[in-house]
């Protein structure tokens, strides 16, 4: 009985660790994007509709995840807003004619697929997701 309790505790701890590890975010871009690194400030500007290009890297188009841990972690780490406030900001821009709504995709794999095939696309995924065909941008 005691061993079963330890096993359950270990399993719970492992799953928490697994979720945390899976939720680590990386920023990816289409190989056409010249930059290899991006500042937090530039990343925030692009993903809040305040900029459409990177310094020395040409025009970029942000790609979002619809929901999930990776999405929440990205917003928390780089945008400083929760999802409701973040989307409210985009709605302000879209309904006042100042931006188009960025594409939101269902999964990390869909983001990788889209970013790989669309010049200028920039997105974010979980670190553990396979990401062939895209480049990883270092966030400074």
């Amino acid at each position, binding site marked *: 009985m005691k061993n079963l309790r330890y096993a359950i505790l270990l399993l719970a701890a492992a799953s928490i660790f697994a979720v945390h590890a899976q939720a680590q975010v990386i920023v990816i871009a289409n190989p056409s994007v010249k930059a290899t690194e991006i500042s937090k400030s530039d990343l925030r500007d692009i993903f809040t509709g305040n*900029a459409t*290009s990177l310094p020395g890297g040409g*025009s970029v188009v942000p790609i979002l995840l619809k929901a999930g841990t990776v999405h929440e972690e990205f917003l928390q780490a780089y945008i400083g807003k929760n999802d*409701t406030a973040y989307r409210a900001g985009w709605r302000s821009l879209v*309904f*006042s004619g100042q931006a*188009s709504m960025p594409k939101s995709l269902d999964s990390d794999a869909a983001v990788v697929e889209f970013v790989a095939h669309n010049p200028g696309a920039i997105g974010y995924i979980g670190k553990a997701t396979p990401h062939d065909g895209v480049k990883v941008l270092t966030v400074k």
Partner: protein
Amino acid sequence: MTRLILRSLAAGLCAAMALSLGLNAQEFKVGSKTVQIHGFGTQGFVHTNDNNWLTMRTSNIGSGAFTDAGVNLTMQIRPNLRIGGQVYDRKLGKLGDWHPQLDWATGDYRVKPWLGFRGGKVKTVLGLYNDSQDVDSAHTFALLPQSVYSIDMRDATLSHIGGDIYGTIKAKKYGKFSYTGYVGDQIQSTHGGYPYLLTIHGIYINKTGGLTYGGDVRWQTPVKGLLTGVSYEENQVRNTGLLNPSVALGGPNILTPYWEQSRSQFTKTIYGTYSYKNLRVDSEYKYFWRDFSIFDGQFLALIGTHAWYESAAYRVNKWFEFGGYYSHFDEDWIITVPGQVEAPSESDPSRHIYDKVVTARFDMYTHWYLKVEGHFMDGNAAGTNPQYPEGFYTQDNPQGLKPNTNALVVRAGFSF
């Protein structure tokens, strides 16, 4: 009545269409380019203890004549080139009255981060929320602070037909500066608060607007989350219509041409906003000045309004947010039309509105939300001689206006 039924059917059809589309943004292709379709709609209910408010009969059981909706199409031709347009319609008591209007229709070309151009019918950047005041889903409050963003005067400064130049300049450790400059023709609705106000004087405006130009500079400070800015706008407005002298001047019961022209009209705002995690604090001050002549200088009128507010909102979790604000409005005027009286002191209820507001917002689903809001207003800024509309109208309150009003506002909305 037939028109009302047809409009109700059209509104129902739009709602059914939105529901059938699962309230998700839609898109289709034109050649290789994607066209996005987005929309929003709100339905409100307002009850007041005293005084009818916002041209609705709110003081009885309340009024639900508070509906608006918009649909837009945008096409991103290149990452830095976009075209689009939005149609907007509303019914707010006796305002708007289901006359759909082209809200904006623009081409937007961003050459560099520090240089972009917009042209067409463009939403005017003036203060924190002038260009996004219709986007109810983006705001905590059911009614934005009415001193600065009075919903009955919504279209007075909302947009212009012309061009903007805009951009953002980084200043290294000093943050960054964004600027917008514009010039154009400000075409206002004849179904707004000011034309409605004038009907009590027997004046029926059928054309309103004129040259406008201005600019906005905002500073994203090095302090994370702190932004501050200033805006200035100048207008040369000419209103034309018909006058029935028997209504307010004791003349014959006929309709004669009426016109008024601003000799000097401007708006100045200074504002700041600070956000930290789930907390947001806004502050804004607006001064509006209007010096205008009626019948080419036969009569003169000068109106000045001071408006400011402080607001705070806190998001508890993804489905609940609460907030409050204090909104201050006072006006002063001098008018030389016979029979008009001088403005009383500011302490008189007809010169001011001091509004204390608390709000709860519930985001039930991704696209749906509900807001419940209480207003506690001191003053009505609409005595026997109203010159500038601010929510309360004497024609809606023939029994006379009481000095204080409490209001309950419930507003539900969706966007996709």
